[in-house]
């Protein structure tokens, strides 16, 4: 029996479908959104969210969870709006130290066999505190080049769309196609067999965490590029948004089953859901609840599809 769709395709189907349906609904409610400017406005805040989602997805690939994603992105945004703008060398050094810290966290979590959620929850206070120390009050200024990049107007498609596609392709290549990504996903799938094959699990974890930090740093910098200034609490909701984005995009909490393209689509869907609810004139008081309802519907659909797939396999 030859299957028409591979499981990876099925995994991507639901997020792609839900994004399309939401997009059609938005266009129906607000036809003016169907333009270069409109699309850019709808999606430009999705770029940092998509990057943070990829970072979270990397952590989830090795069966961990990062609860400090929001505060870390806020911290990076503060660094980007101050040090990176005023003294680029020092700013780069601070960010490099942050990447090294993430790698060390990965090693610590593995060596001491600690639950990642506890370690990262603790770290979220550290990052939050550092962000407040750097920028006690909202302020700072985005580096010129970041600002220029984020408001650039490439031909054919708005920056937000092109950036999302690039993020999706680069992370897909890195995690799904490269031989390095196989090891990362192998650690999530069956760490013991990866170890028996002679790989260093510590090294793989450290690399995963460092790579996640790199994506989170890109998220923080691009966020500052959009908002022009930073605030210590600027990205707190990213923690949950990024987890929701991964799950929405077909990823799973354990087992190394992730999909970078899906994660980016998930981030876009979450961003669009907010706009969609505004267009529906739902009061902001109800928006979070309505966003939750959208999540539940999409995840319910996925469960249904998984069950169908399993039944087909048994048949």
């Amino acid at each position, binding site marked *: 029996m030859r299957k028409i769709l591979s499981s990876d395709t099925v995994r991507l189907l639901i997020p792609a479908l839900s994004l399309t349906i939401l997009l059609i609904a938005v266009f129906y409610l607000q036809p003016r959104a169907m333009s270069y400017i409109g699309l850019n406005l709808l999606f430009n805040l999705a770029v940092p969210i998509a990057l943070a989602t990829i970072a979270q997805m990397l952590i989830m690939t090795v069966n961990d969870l990062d609860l400090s994603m929001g505060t870390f992105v806020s911290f990076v945004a503060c660094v980007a709006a101050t040090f990176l703008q005023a003294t680029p060398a020092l700013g780069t050094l601070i960010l490099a130290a942050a990447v090294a810290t993430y790698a060390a966290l990965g090693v610590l979590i593995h060596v001491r066999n600690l639950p990642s959620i506890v370690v990262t929850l603790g770290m979220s206070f550290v990052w939050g505190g550092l962000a407040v120390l750097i920028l006690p009050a909202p302020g700072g200024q985005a580096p010129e080049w970041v600002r220029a990049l984020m408001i650039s107007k490439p031909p054919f498609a708005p920056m937000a769309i092109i950036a999302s596609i690039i993020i999706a392709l680069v992370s897909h290549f890195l995690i799904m196609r490269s031989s390095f990504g196989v090891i990362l996903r192998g650690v999530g799938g069956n760490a013991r067999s990866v170890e*028996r*094959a002679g790989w260093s699990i510590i090294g793989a974890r450290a690399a995963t965490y460092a790579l996640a930090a790199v994506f989170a740093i890109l998220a923080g910098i691009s966020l500052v590029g959009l908002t022009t200034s930073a605030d210590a609490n600027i990205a707190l909701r990213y923690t949950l948004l990024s987890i929701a984005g991964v799950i929405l995009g077909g990823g799973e909490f354990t*087992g190394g089953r992730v999909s970078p393209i899906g994660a980016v689509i998930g981030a876009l869907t979450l961003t669009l859901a907010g706009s969609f609810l505004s267009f529906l004139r739902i009061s902001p008081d109800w928006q979070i609840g309505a966003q939750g309802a959208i999540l539940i519907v999409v995840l319910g659909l996925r469960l249904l599809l998984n069950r169908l797939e399993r039944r087909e396999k048994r048949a």
Partner: protein
Amino acid sequence: MTDEPQRHAVIEVADARVSFGAVKALDGVSVKIMPGECVGLVGHNGAGKSTIVNVINGGLTPHSGTISLSGTAAVRYGIGTARANGVRCVFQELSLCPNLTVIENTRIMHQTLTGWGWRRRAAAIIGAKLDEIFPGHGIDVASPVSHLSIAERQMVEIATAFSHVAQPVRLVILDEPTSSLDASLATQLLAYVRSFVAAGGSVILISHILGEILTTSDRIIVMKDGRVVAERPATEFDEHSLVAAMGSVVKGRDIAKTIKPTHGLQPLLTAAERRGKGLSFQAFSGEIIGLAGLGGHGQTDMLVDLYLSHTSNWMNGRAPRVTFVAGDRALNGVFPLWSILKNLSIAHLSGLSRRGGLLDDTGEAALGQSWKDRIEIRTPDVDNPILSLSGGNQQKVLFARALATPAPAVLMDDPMRGVDIGTKQEVYAILRDEAHKGRTFVWYSTEMDEVCLCDRVYVFNNGAIVAELKGEDVTEKNILAASFMGAAA
């Protein structure tokens, strides 16, 4: 590989000793594997087969003893060294990453598959090897492992181990490779093993199917209790002499067992034939029934099924019909953060609660004290944390947990793993005592001595009950014969 002028052993392990706590897993084992031979390794549960395999593949460093490769002693022998010298292992429990494709799993096993086009190269390597070992296998190498059947996964794992990427494959350890393959696939594999050996490679074959061992190996090593007890060319063995070599010298039996007449009695627990083959299961009041056979041949599944079919998911009444003593203490036995008393009383909470759902504290304390005295849990106070006890005493608490319930039947999933001999004797006495009072015990054990204590024994092989032994027939010899020679796969 051609024969070198001086023929060195591929690997030689000399006088290896490994102990886990009080248990001596390897007690001075020396094994020498020459190029171009297939060595069969047999022994019952706990004989030390898996431990010596782990020593050879570098996963476990022996506490004493030397390992030499091609005649030179290895200084720091680990997984890396083993792989670099062409030692590969196919494990009994499947060890592929289910979320990755066959190609990607090949990449995990072979570090040198990197750079552009690694997917194409990996697909070619694994595809060719699968075709070579299992012609007509029908496995799509681009599909994720989770979509493959158990037999297909086993085939992939075997093919990965035999595939030559950077270093030549010199020694492949096959641990029960045919357990999930059907007869024709097993024949293909064994034929491949012979051709691999003929080309100068070496294989260590572990199997419970003695026929395979006898026909495929050049030399057979028999292990028992962490020692090599026999090592001879395969031609000098037959099935009976192998089984005899695995058993111990005959020992005196302390208790003469009486076969209780069971005709006309209503069985307490019953179960139909497993997977529609073999014998059915019956347990009568006051019996101690052993489930024997090699580990992982369906005994635990049987216990779990018995438990689930006699309890309910939702409402368990005040009088449960069965209770369970878990084998893996850390996994599903103790509550590590709780006190000894709470660990003991958890199964009997419904009996200890008063109307209104509140717990009867004095009743609970009295229960704890009475069991502490009765089975001699060595602690000054039952309110101490459970982890303050030694493993054997923790296991006693788990026994008390089960015995404190009014359930007439107790199911035990190899509960004596890693328990010292003194504690074992105490628990055996308690079991006998309780059985006299009419309780029924269903006892899966991987240790021969324990199985021989039972009134009646069901021997498992490949998920089915293949033999029922009663009273005086419950002997090591009969059990070994049934578990190795029963239903050949």
